């Protein structure tokens, strides 16, 4: 193996793969029982962080950036004049093993441009995973991209070697997809998702009867959407995210702010800034839906189509529903506590534990670590000092904004100075 050539290929094919946000390495259930290499039993590890602050946990590369498709938002689309390269199957295997042995990575995230056709490409991705598992005795994490339009048979095999499978839906609306990726069909994305979901369910059911049934994609499946490429609203995005969570038992939906990579009149111009703050608000909403018991229509509906940028989605829900408050910290149920702005799920469980011993007051709550600058306006506890109830949502919002320091302030100061 020529290391010079490898370096060149690696820089091309890692560069092309970096717009995939998923870097999760948790949820795998592969124990190192055979004195092989690698152990993946639950917690993910971020081995490093890039200068943009994102975690590096997997060797995230494309097998090749040759592609027969011409999707407007993608760097590797066929009409783009860039350097092309391809790894051999054995090269990816060697790279993964050698990086893993040095504790650089948790495993492999392998995606690919589509060459010839879907099945031909997917076959190669599966071959890498198979080689790692069977020949190298590798128990680390493997995330394979399902190529849209792959046959069911290949998808079944993929899940036996991979921990996670994903298809990126990329564009949240069907009309957007038609505009930007005319070669791709919505059904082609859905088919492998459906297959993976069914297989997971089936293997799980069989495992209940026969213990030795192998696990199928133990870390489930995920998908990704590009934010801000087609003018979709936050409501469009979150409603389709909810659809994928429910319909296909997605483990995660990722939101990726569109990074302008090309000039195309269908897309935002090259100077457009990456919508990092919007992305952040979408993730917060995603968390509220998955862990805090909110339903999507409470946060986004026809009246409120987009999330507020200056405050977090939970706070903006609370301001719209002031009659829900105040909540008594010492009495309220878990799901009610979870709805108080400034209190996260960890604080909720600490509050539940601590209040068995004594009634909690402001100092206890502060020690537990809740964000009092927001929470104090929505709760009562074992104290005589409370906020005044007769404040309008608008004033309350301003009070909170004044007392809080957001790392995002720079994004909305322009807006505020207009008033």
């Amino acid at each position: 193996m020529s290391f010079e050539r490898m370096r060149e290929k690696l820089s091309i094919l890692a560069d092309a793969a970096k717009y995939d946000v998923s870097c999760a390495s948790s949820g795998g259930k592969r124990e190192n029982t055979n004195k092989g290499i690698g152990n993946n039993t639950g917690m993910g590890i971020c081995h490093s962080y890039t200068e943009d602050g994102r975690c590096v946990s997997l060797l995230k590369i494309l097998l090749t950036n040759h592609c027969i498709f011409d999707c407007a938002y993608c760097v590797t689309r066929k009409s783009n004049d860039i350097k092309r390269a391809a790894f051999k199957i054995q090269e990816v295997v060697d790279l993964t093993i050698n990086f893993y042995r040095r504790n650089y990575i948790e495993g492999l995230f392998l995606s690919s441009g589509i060459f010839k056709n879907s099945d031909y490409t997917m076959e190669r991705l599966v071959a890498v995973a198979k080689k790692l598992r069977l020949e190298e005795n590798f128990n680390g994490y493997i995330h394979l991209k399902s190529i849209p339009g792959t046959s069911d048979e290949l998808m079944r095999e993929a899940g036996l070697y991979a921990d996670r499978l994903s298809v990126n839906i990329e564009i949240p609306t069907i009309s957007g997809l038609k505009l930007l990726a005319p070669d791709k069909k919505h059904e082609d994305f859905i088919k492998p998702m459906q297959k993976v979901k069914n297989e997971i369910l089936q293997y799980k059911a069989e495992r209940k009867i026969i213990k030795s049934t192998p696990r199928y994609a133990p870390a489930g499946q995920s998908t990704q959407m590009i934010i801000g490429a087609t003018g979709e609203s936050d409501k469009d995005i979150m409603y389709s995210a909810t659809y994928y969570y429910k319909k296909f038992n997605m483990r995660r939906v990722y939101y990726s702010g569109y990074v302008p990579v090309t000039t195309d009149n269908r897309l935002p111009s090259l100077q457009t800034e990456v919508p990092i703050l919007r992305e952040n608000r979408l993730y917060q909403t995603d968390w509220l839906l998955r862990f805090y018991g909110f339903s999507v229509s409470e946060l986004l509906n026809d009246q409120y189509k987009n999330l507020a940028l200056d405050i977090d989605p939970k706070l903006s829900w609370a301001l719209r529903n002031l009659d829900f408050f105040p909540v008594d910290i010492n009495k309220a149920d878990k799901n009610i506590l979870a709805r108080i702005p400034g209190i996260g799920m960890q604080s909720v469980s600490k509050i539940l534990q601590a209040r068995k011993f004594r009634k909690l007051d402001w100092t206890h709550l502060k020690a537990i670590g809740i964000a009092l600058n927001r929470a104090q306006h929505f709760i009562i506890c074992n104290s005589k000092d409370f906020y005044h109830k007769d404040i309008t949502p608008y004033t309350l919002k301003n009070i909170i904004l004044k007392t809080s320091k957001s790392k995002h302030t720079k994004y909305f100061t322009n807006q505020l100075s207009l008033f």
Partner: protein
Amino acid sequence: MNPQTILLYDGSFDGFLTCVFTVYEQKIGTPIIRKESESNNQLFTISETIITDETKSNRVWKGIKTKIPSSQQKILFKAFLSEIKGVENTLLCYIKNIFDTPNATLIDYSNKDILKISQVAKMVGREKHRMEAFVRFQRTKDDIFVSTIEPDFNVLPLLIYHFKDRYADQKWLIYDIKRSYGLYYDLDKVDIITLDFFSKLNTSVQKENYADNELDFQKLWQTYFNSVNIKSRKNSKLHLQHLPKRYWKYLIEKNEI
């Protein structure tokens, strides 16, 4: 005025538990437990050096085990490994509390000692997790994967199972430069060893001892690290928050080779 008793021990967990045993055995009221290395003779104090005795320490640990669940035992051990000055005394208060209360299984986060211990344990846990991430092995000529680290807390004992389970088929060594000891896995078991080879001046493997290709793979890793960065999303604050500068010294991707 009663002089205060200072118990000096060798710094090991067994040593600390032996001190706890002595406190009960000799009915010492308000002792201070301190490492020998931190001792300074004070007026109006009696210092006593406690010799580590495993039968005594085992008895104390056995007693603790019947009183609190394993999650709490881990927290106690982690807090001890923090080596924060005076942590022994907070732990002693906590252990006394465990033995005095009939049912100590519930965790009272509004109790000051417990909150402090669980916070310290969390810090140690975080450092352990960081080391699981930031260890970078370098393959040597004699086919051992060697890594040197300088963790904030004494987390090596917490790392044994993680690395043993993960790298079962390769010989590896993780050496704590700050505390001058390391873990060595010989394909069968993990031993605690001390070496003269590493010191505060000589903190890593020299290039001439690298295995073939070692340098090439380090370069490949750097190439990878630089290629996955998205420049238009640069966020130095976040980068430093996740990857504080004090760890850079041992991270291949943050150094020139």
